[in-house]
């Protein structure tokens, strides 16, 4: 009998705003259930969900929400990393 294991999938959804209903503007999937290497999807790719809320309704658990913070004084006009990064998790049973 193959050993049964629980494995984790992490879905990073980057939103346009802090609301979990905001539109997805970027995404990454790190899938611990497979040995497949990730490939970026290319320019015609559609995100897997329209919002974090949509992903929750499909069984993803939110394990991190971004802090909302004011810009540092003197850096009000500077942008850097993607702002609204939500981390979601799914645990899946695989046969070892």
């Amino acid at each position, binding site marked *: 009998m193959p050993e049964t294991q629980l494995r984790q999938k992490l879905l*990073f959804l*980057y939103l*346009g705003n802090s609301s979990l209903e905001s539109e997805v503007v*970027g995404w*990454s999937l790190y899938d611990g259930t497979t040995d497949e290497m990730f490939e*970026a999807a*290319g320019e015609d790719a559609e995100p897997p969900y329209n919002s974090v809320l949509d992903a929750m309704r499909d069984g993803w658990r939110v394990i991190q929400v971004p802090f909302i913070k004011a810009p540092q004084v003197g850096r009000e006009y*500077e942008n*850097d990393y993607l702002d609204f990064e939500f981390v979601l998790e799914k645990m899946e049973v695989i046969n070892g």
Partner: protein
Amino acid sequence: MDKNLLLTSVEMAQFASTGFLRFDNLVPRELCEAAHEEMSTGKLRRRAPMGSPFSESWPDEAIGKVFRLPKVAAIIHSLVGPNPRYDHHAAHLTPANTRKGANLHQDAEYDIRDLHFDIQISFFPEDTPLESGGTLFVPGTQFRRVHEAEIKRYQNIIGQVQAVCEAGTMFFWHTNIWHSARSNFTDRDRYMFKLRLNPTVRQQRLWNTDDLDSPEVKQALNQKIPWHGQRHRIELMNRIKFWRFLTGDPTFDLALWWGRVENTPDIIVQGG
């Protein structure tokens, strides 16, 4: 320099907004083949001294002819002016059936210049179908200050553009654009020739400015990049600042984005 070959103001505004310009079929096939031959036989491995005049690079090679094509030279002139400095080049090879994995990065985290910029040129000497993994660019990332490959966690960003093109296509890009090499799933090796150039003059009105007052210029500058989300207005203000730098017009604005925050009147009027 033939003025008609220079970039237009609309094209420059597009560059200011997205950080790159794409030109298809700029280089004739025969010259592409000759340049490809130089890449694949290792003839272009040796680099010129960094900082040397670009005009001295590859006097006899096909790759030199590529960059001296009148239209290519005019685009370079429009972005970095006459007599640019050679920074470095690379004939990037992605061998057949090579998986690259996550690779998104910005080249120049050490380059904290506010407005002056270098350009990089990506030249594709062969047809580059989607599955051969041409470079992926993320439009509108040129004003983002991030640390080189720390953005590797980001796999997909809405609006990303992959170089899927015919031989002879070139991308001219602001060196701070986020980009990524992609996997080559074909049975053919793939080359992309990258060249970085530095300006030696102030980057001001180096293009054909005949259409500077065209409404299409403001349209291009006003465009919304979908992934900017709530940051759109700050991106717009950075874009306006960049356009002021490029045109030498410190009063340029779109609506009153800077006009509001620069409005701190000191005129005292008598009350009552």
